[in-house]
């Protein structure tokens, strides 16, 4: 034991290696390795009869993906859903987080944070199946409850997916904004008020710029999680499909094509992160 300790002490490089081998291996093999395999598979093709993957380099999958208008639609649809979910989550999360961070008493603040976190403890599937019962057209819980005031369930489809995903990812938006608002000194708000700014003006000119990095952090969660989701669409999406569903639908029959489709969300996320980086928000996280 003493010996090991001594050697470690004398050899800073060995120390560093011992510390970093596991995480680096994980990162390179499991993470980058999987991505690289995905990218390579996208250029393969399959035997049209047996479905076995043939390792012949070709661009056929990309050609199929780009020429078939169905896949353009599904990309736009998925983007639309991910953006709607992010916007809805932002609109719901800001007042909630503001109340938690600035208005609630410190005691109830803790309780509120716990309450925000509790839905995360329940299984994803349970929550989405619950929404299935809620949204069921004709005899769902929502229609039973709100039917008398003229509410009609949107049924299973795009709106249902947006509702379901917004519900699922809301905590991931509230928590970063809450953390950002907590760091925001109260006297800035007071100073803004003293200088004659109205509440809305204070929010727009003082609060919003300061919590913008938190907003971006939250949006990265809601946007990327929505972009890759397929289970919600399977359960409450009716016949509507998202990008994840295309991958799921194809991976068993045509793995290379599924890999080709899977490069789309990766590309979109890369572009998104690049845009975020340009705003400088990442540095403030």
């Amino acid at each position, binding site marked *: 034991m003493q010996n090991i300790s001594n050697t470690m002490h004398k050899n800073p490089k060995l120390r560093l290696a011992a510390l970093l081998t596991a995480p*680096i291996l994980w990162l*390179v*093999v499991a993470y*980058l*390795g999987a991505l*690289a*395999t995905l990218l*390579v*598979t996208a250029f393969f093709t*399959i*035997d*049209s*009869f*047996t*479905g*076995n993957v043939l*390792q012949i380099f070709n661009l056929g999958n990309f050609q*199929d993906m780009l020429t*078939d*208008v*169905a*896949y353009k*639609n*599904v990309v736009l649809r998925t983007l639309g859903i991910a953006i709607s979910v992010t916007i809805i989550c932002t609109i719901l999360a800001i007042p909630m987080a503001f109340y938690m961070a600035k208005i609630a008493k410190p005691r109830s603040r803790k309780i509120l944070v716990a309450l925000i976190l509790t839905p995360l403890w329940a299984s994803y599937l349970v929550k989405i199946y619950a929404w299935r019962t809620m949204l*069921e*057209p*004709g*005899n769902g819980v929502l229609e039973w409850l709100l039917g008398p005031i003229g509410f009609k369930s949107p*049924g*299973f489809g795009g709106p249902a997916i947006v509702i379901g995903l917004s519900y699922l990812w809301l905590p991931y938006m509230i928590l970063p904004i809450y953390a950002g608002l907590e760091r925001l000194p109260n006297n800035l708000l007071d100073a803004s008020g003293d200088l004659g700014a109205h509440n809305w003006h204070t929010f727009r000119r003082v609060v919003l710029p300061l919590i913008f990095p938190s907003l971006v952090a939250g949006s990265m969660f809601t946007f990327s999680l929505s972009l890759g989701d397929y289970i919600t669409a*399977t*359960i409450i999406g*009716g*016949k509507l*499909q998202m990008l994840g*569903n*295309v991958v799921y*639908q*194809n*991976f*068993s*029959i*045509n793995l290379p*094509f599924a890999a080709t489709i899977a490069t789309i969300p990766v590309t979109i996320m890369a572009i998104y992160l690049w845009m975020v980086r340009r705003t400088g928000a990442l540095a403030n996280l």
Partner: protein
Amino acid sequence: MQKKRLFSQIAVASVAALILAGCSSSNDAASSSGVPDVPMMESLGAGEGQVNLVAWAGYVENGSTDPNVDWVTGFEEETGCKVNVKNGATSDDMVALMKTGEYDVVSASGDASLRLIYGGDVAPVNTDLIANYADIFDNLKLQQWNSVDGVSYGVPHGRGANLLAYRTDIVNPAPTSWGTVFDANSPYKGKITAYDSPIYIADAALYLMATQPDLGIEYPYALDQKQFDAAVELLKTQKPLIGEYWGDYLKHVASIKSGGTVLGTTWQVNINLAKGEGTKVEGIKPSEGSTGWSDTWMISSKAKNPNCAYMWINHIASPEANAGVAEWFGEAPSNAKSCDLTADKNHCATFHAADDAYWEDVYYWNTPTEACLDGRTDAKCVPYAEWVKAWSSLRNS
């Protein structure tokens, strides 16, 4: 800077090694007939203690769905082979699962069996080692979808037709034709369902076969480009009518129960499950006939528990187990002696087990190939890979 470069070099090297490892694991040894050479089991040894199955829902019941429905526990006690089952939702699922090599046995339908044989994923079956094989109906043995060149690749399980389900308390009048699920003015718009698999294109082709004789469709799995396009076009016009496509049978049953689905294609077992929960639902074979399945128990070429696999296949082909499955799933049994053992003595009559005329307009799932399966030589047919593309495109448009 030095360190950074070292790390990136390690990263690049590891990734390259991974890719190479992925590339070198191909196995494409094939014999002259195009079927990979897979050895057949010569003799049976002691059980391995477990067997891993890929099966259709309802084929492997151990009493957990219904305490009275159990043909697994007895087998486990008798042979010491613990049965692990993974339900496949579609034939494509099953093919993918079998390609992993983690399963010993599969209950393959005709649209999966040939792909598995030619893919080298299943082994020829030594029927001498399966005592109950002798009692299987002769007209199910050594068929186009379970054998190649007179070599059997499995033991027939049973057969049935894909039915048109309808909620008897909602759909009025009762349907008699598949036309009800393709009718653009259907009053049940948004509450119709269809099976979520490329093979459903054959259901559209079957309907066109009866209603548009000009197209000249003889066999729904042998479609030339024009016929195929017509079938896909029909499915496009059907899409607005569909509420949900179903792949997960449990969700499908729940949807029938709640009234979200009132009409559409289904399996007898789903009707039984929904009825068991008090839903008013019936299934019919419409006037145009139907697509259907004739399933085969096959053994993986990479089976880790081959002895238990053979024991399982012998067990599931036995009159008792075969009668149990046939009655629970709602299909015609494959073992001639099963008919005496069903709880409902009319079961074999109801499901036309020995009634060849009934099966004349039931088109068992098959794998479409470029060479037309109906024997046409003057036309080129659309292979299954194109069916998959068309279906994916239809579902995502």
